[in-house]
């Protein structure tokens, strides 16, 4: 790792102040992403992984608010950015790809309008050169006959094609960082494979860093360099993807990995983690996973701190698996 990472999230806490109480959607999350690196952010629904992504881009709406922590992007603390600063960064240096390709494109605007708009929002170029960039971006994400496609409306595209267009919009301004919020969850596995392949290639070629938010460990396994596992708003384990998947230290990571059905276990009942994700509203002190954990004991009533059991790996647990 280089001395100054592209993105450093340090002790981020983002809470929702609802009438029913404070929801600690993101509770002490730290990680760093270097240029050209792919970071996987894994967790169940409601683990705060998407909210971490939204926080990075300053997209958290009231009653949500970042209460603590820094998000340093290339030397700038994003939590202190003014609207003008955001305009310079959003869609330009940090882009985002959303989950549902059916929804991310405006149904009433043509593809060319939407991509050109993205270019013109950040670059002072003529409409013609913006269109040329739009065309180039479509080619880069593997869309055949881009000229014809540029004049089409989103409803004339399949789900996979729409997601490619969404990725093209994210790429068109040559961002340093892309945050992808489960962009392949709504797609077929074959299409998902193609998109993962393209994304990996694009990141390697252009040096763009990628934060890939997903609940799907198998996606992370093939795509990411580093992985962060989140549970109930907290980061529970992180490290190089091969290490974490080979030898998970946190009982929750182990449970997640065991929950992925594999061919070897055919005939045997599938593994599952007992219990349910706790409500973030009623979360008391202590390890949020202790109710579902086999190795939990009295010590888990106190929240475990982040430790570094091995170089490059971090863990929030008193009972790391051997």
């Amino acid at each position, binding site marked *: 790792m280089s001395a100054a990472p592209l993105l450093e999230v340090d002790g981020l806490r983002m809470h929702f102040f609802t009438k029913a109480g404070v929801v600690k959607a993101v509770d002490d999350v730290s990680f760093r992403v270097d240029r050209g690196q792919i970071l996987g952010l894994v967790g169940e629904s409601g683990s705060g992984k998407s909210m971490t992504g939204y926080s990075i*881009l300053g*997209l958290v709406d009231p009653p949500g608010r970042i209460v603590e922590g820094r998000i340093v992007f290339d030397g700038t603390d994003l939590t202190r950015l003014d609207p003008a600063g*955001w*305009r*310079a*960064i*959003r*869609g*330009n240096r940090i*882009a*985002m790809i*959303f*989950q*549902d390709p*059916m*929804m*991310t*494109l*405006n*149904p*009433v*605007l043509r593809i060319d309008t939407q991509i050109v*708009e*993205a270019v013109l*929002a*950040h670059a002072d170029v003529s409409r013609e050169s913006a269109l040329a960039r739009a065309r180039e971006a479509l080619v880069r994400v593997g869309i055949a006959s881009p000229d*014809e*496609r540029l*004049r*089409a*409306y*989103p*409803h*004339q595209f*399949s789900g996979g094609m729409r997601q490619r267009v*969404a990725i093209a*919009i994210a790429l068109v301004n040559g961002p340093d960082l892309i945050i992808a919020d489960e962009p392949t969850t709504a797609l077929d596995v074959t299409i998902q494979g193609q998109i993962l392949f393209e994304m990996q290639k694009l990141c390697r070629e252009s040096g763009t860093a990628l934060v890939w938010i997903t609940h799907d460990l198998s996606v992370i396994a093939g795509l990411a360099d580093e992985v962060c596992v989140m549970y109930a708003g907290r980061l529970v384990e992180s490290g190089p993807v091969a290490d974490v998947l080979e030898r998970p230290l946190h009982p929750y990571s182990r449970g997640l990995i065991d929950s992925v059905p594999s061919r070897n276990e055919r005939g045997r009942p599938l593994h599952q983690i007992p219990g349910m994700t706790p409500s973030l509203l009623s979360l008391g002190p202590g390890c949020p996973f202790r109710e579902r954990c086999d190795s939990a004991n009295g010590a888990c009533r106190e929240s475990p701190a982040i430790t570094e059991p091995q170089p490059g790996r971090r863990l929030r647990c008193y009972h790391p698996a051997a």
Partner: protein
Amino acid sequence: MADAEGTGTAAAAATGGAAAIGPWARFRAEFAESRLAMVGLALLAAIVVLGLLAPVISPQNPYDLAQLDVMDSKLAPGEESATGKTYWLGTDDQGRDMLSGILYGLRISLGVGITSTVFALAIGLFFGLLAAYFGGWTDTLVMRVVDIQLSFPAILIALVLLAVLGQGVGKIVVALVTVQWAYYARTVRSAALVERQKEYVEAARVLALGRARIVFRHLLPNCLPPLIVVATVQVAHAIALEATLSFLGLGLPITEPSLGLLISNGFQYLLSGKYWISFYPGIALLLTIMSINLVADQLRDVLNPRLRR
């Protein structure tokens, strides 16, 4: 809405072409599925043409008092006057040719209806979008004003306004706009609240597009389908309201015959057998409103994604 456009997607995908069947062509085909709506559309087109051409085709200019002859008053339809003119729909108590009066009346009714709808739509659209996009106290303020206004009957507000403003075409348009903008504001707000939750708005924010651009370029066009339907129905309402106000003597001055005024003129003769003074303008008003409503009904069916096959 996008996922409901199955036929278009399939057709476009099959040919691989971008515009195998455009949205406009599909819209026309779906609209034409209803015979009744096509009849309504044809009728409406005829009424609009007649209204527009009123100065050219009507036998008499009802505004020009010099052309009126009191001797010809209250002639029955088809009766010939002393000077040899035939009044096909009869004359009213001032000797005005009813056919001319109706044609000019249509012109005013449609003009008032459409103008007030356009202005009310623009104002309602603006405030509705504002309320939906910014939320918070902007939303509260706009929507409470709308609620207060909608809690009064439209006719009451218009009556009070006209009593203060006086008579005239411009004033009746002002009154109708004041009455109607609230409907649009409410419709736009509810449509925009749904739309702004969609990811494309979030995606536009991520691109750091300006607020005005997000609201008017991204939100607005997606809120239009329900508005087009409401606007069409409201044209008919506006025409009916204008006729009512004129009938009550508060709308247009006697020198500018609108349909409501003509009906009002003949009202007192209705029971004395001179039915035509009220009857024919009434039929014209009925046909106008009915044709607009037929078109509006079909528009609603075509533009409502839930009713799509």
